[in-house]
């Protein structure tokens, strides 16, 4: 171990730690997956990452990449020990080439900071996870994350043009070119996006950016129950309207939002759908009017919010996932079964099933999420000192995952598999498809040093 530490120091200088306290800090993300690393390193360049992986390959040391550690599936928890590569120090925006509608960034760039930098040019990077104030682009790439606006803008995968990747043996490759489209060869870019650091470590990314919409408006429609709300959403899509965001917030979520910001003018009861439309002043006015009209017959109330009020609603919405403890300080939100997705039409059925699971197990569940793309976030919260509640939580999460798969859906829409959901992957994909994944893993990481144990690999 001392020899390895010396070698690591030779590569990254004092940006390495083997102290028990530091290792403890890098043992997990926001999930319940824990694994203590032997070393933490904070590389500053591609060449350092390359040398680190060569060292790992030579000594068969597990190497786990980590961004801001905001993940919810244990993707960056080093469950087999080894080295954690904290990539958040590689945080430069290397190029803003708005004329070619793209940027080149290092993986440690925080998503929100990228958007601050792009704003003066009139552009933005559309994927917007709730954690965008702290999560890194590298983490977003590794989990193919998305967010509230994916209903219109899609996921991270839709925005990646080129990746610089360090392979398990230290070789450095580029997966694409600085072009908006290419039909040359296998789509390696898309392969690495969402691979959770199991195939290589991303050291820079060429990303497509989009022009900032001139204006945005929100329609808040409140319904008696989720099923009616879901039907309204389906009617809106079938009328050819594509909102830029379409979020469902249940009664509990509304209570928590109020606690986050008591001044928020949101309904206090019912199931609310937040429709956001973006574009020009006239196109958003027209879309907001149409959405209001479609919702009106079945909604308890409908109103439009703009400007500062809209910003406050979005700010509170982004934090709601972690804010559940404000409702009941004796309970903590545990991220399990929190990211299922189903075809949009099945959302009402999924909500109903989740409710039944929660009632049967007597475990409180807050439901919110991106109803526009079928992604439901379920927040289960328990007294973490109570063993019985932990058992119920695990059972509830398992049943929620299975309910989503039964409805033709996925155990994760945007948070990834990590270790937390690894057990479901062969079942969801089918063994044949999963064995293709295993073959790819073997081809790119024959020694199995890259984030071992994740995604069932």
């Amino acid at each position, binding site marked *: 171990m001392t020899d390895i530490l010396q070698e690591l120091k030779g590569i990254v200088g004092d940006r390495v730690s083997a102290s*028990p306290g530091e290792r403890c800090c890098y043992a997990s993300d926001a999930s319940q997956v824990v694994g203590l690393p032997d070393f933490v390193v904070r590389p500053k360049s591609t060449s350092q990452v390359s040398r680190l992986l060569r060292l790992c390959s030579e000594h068969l040391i597990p190497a786990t990449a980590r961004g801001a550690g905001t993940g919810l599936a244990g993707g960056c928890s080093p469950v087999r020990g080894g080295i954690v590569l904290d990539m958040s120090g590689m945080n430069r925006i290397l190029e803003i080439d708005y004329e070619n509608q793209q940027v080149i960034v290092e993986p440690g760039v925080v998503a929100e900071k990228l958007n601050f930098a792009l704003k003066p040019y009139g552009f933005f990077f559309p994927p917007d996870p709730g954690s965008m104030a702290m999560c890194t682009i590298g983490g977003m790439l590794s989990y193919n994350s998305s967010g509230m606006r994916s209903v219109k803008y899609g996921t991270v995968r839709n925005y990646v043009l080129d990746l610089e990747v360090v392979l398990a043996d230290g070789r450095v490759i580029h997966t694409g070119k600085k072009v908006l489209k290419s039909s040359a060869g296998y789509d390696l870019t898309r392969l690495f996006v969402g691979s959770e650091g199991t195939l290589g470590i991303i050291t820079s990314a060429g990303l497509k950016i989009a022009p900032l919409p001139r204006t945005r408006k929100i329609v808040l429609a409140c319904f008696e129950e989720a099923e009616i709300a879901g039907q309204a959403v389906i009617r809106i899509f079938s009328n050819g309207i594509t909102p830029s965001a379409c979020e469902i917030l249940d009664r509990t979520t509304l209570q928590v939002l109020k606690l986050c910001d008591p001044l928020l003018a949101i309904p206090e009861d019912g199931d609310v759908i937040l429709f956001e439309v973006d574009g020009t002043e006239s196109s958003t006015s027209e879309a907001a009017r149409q959405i209001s009209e479609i919702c009106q017959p079945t909604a308890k109330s409908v109103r439009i919010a703009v400007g500062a009020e809209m910003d406050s609603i979005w700010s509170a919405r982004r934090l709601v996932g972690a804010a559940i403890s404000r409702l009941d300080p004796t309970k903590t939100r545990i991220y399990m079964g929190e990211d299922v997705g189903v075809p949009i039409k099945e959302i009402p059925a999924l909500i109903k099933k989740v409710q039944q699971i929660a009632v049967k197990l007597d475990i409180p569940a807050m439901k919110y999420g991106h109803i526009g793309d079928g992604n439901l976030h379920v927040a289960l919260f328990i007294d973490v000192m109570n063993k019985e509640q932990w058992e119920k939580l695990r059972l509830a999460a398992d049943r929620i995952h299975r309910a989503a798969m039964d409805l033709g859906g996925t155990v994760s829409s945007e948070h990834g598999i990590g270790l937390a959901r690894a057990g479901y992957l062969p079942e969801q994909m089918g063994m044949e498809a999963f064995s293709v994944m295993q073959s790819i893993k073997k081809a790119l990481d024959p020694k199995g040093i890259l984030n071992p144990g994740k995604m069932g690999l």
Partner: protein
Amino acid sequence: MNLDLKAINQCVRCGSCRTFCPVFEESGWESANTRGRIMILKGLTCGLQPDLQVLGSLNTCTTCGICTENCPAGVNPPEIIENARRQLVSLGKMTCQQADLSRNIFASGNTFGDGRDRLSWLTDRGLLTKKADYVYFAGCMNSYRYTETAANTFALLNRFGATMLPAEQCCGSPLLRTGFDARRFIDENCRQIANTGAKTVITGCAGCYTTLKKSYPQDFRVLSVPEFLAERISEMDIKPLDLTVTYHDPCHLGRHNQIYEQPRQVIRAICRLKEMKTSGKAARCCGGGGGVRAGYKDLSLKMAKKRLEDVPGEVDYIVTSCPLCIRNLRDAGAGEKVIDLVDLVAMAMQ
């Protein structure tokens, strides 16, 4: 260790604090971030040993409270961390700097270990009445380092009938922030305050303020100098100054006690105010609090330098209401441009 597991478990490790923690911004290591500190505390309950690195993680928190302000889960990390520091100190686990600081205070009654008279700056001791409605509590920093500010403050407050304690002791803040017991000093100051008959204690130090208000028995009202001045500004002979200043919110006045508007009210009565890039609840810490300046001076000054980047252009002074902030911002390069609110008021009264 008997740590408050309920409070620790409230943290969902979402990492929101990475965006705000000024120490993490300088260090980049997770152990220098609030989330990391909480994970370390959890580790301590499961066998992690409190070695120097662990103490460094816990002791570099400036207790600025910006994480509390922005924590979606409603966690109050400074409270959890101060509690942990207390427990560790009670087990004899502390750094040399912590030990030196407490030794100084216990030996001399002030943070500097200074043996000189605390009231050496006071030219006319006859102004100290035995009984009074108000007590001006100067604090260690103004008593020994910024004596002109102490003199200006007392001159102002004395007009309204304030006296001072004959043998004021350190309020106990540095001890409490770094994990030590401050009862001896609290009891002694309380005894002297009771002897004056005063029902209100006024202090110009944000650290003293938060300590007097939250750690002392509630036998008297505690006011900060900005609060007092805001109440009495119309009774003072203020002449407007052709100056533009900015205001730095001390964490222990602002986020810890919600005193945001009063100092601004006083400034606006005197001159133009231009806000810093981050202010009010979002104000960046100067890096001096929580024992960080005493224990980790370089880190502390780096944070102060970062704070100075928030200063808007073309201001004549950076005004604040905490001598700890003044020292750190001055030492980080701003020099005499940083002044106390009272010094601005004194200029307007000349």
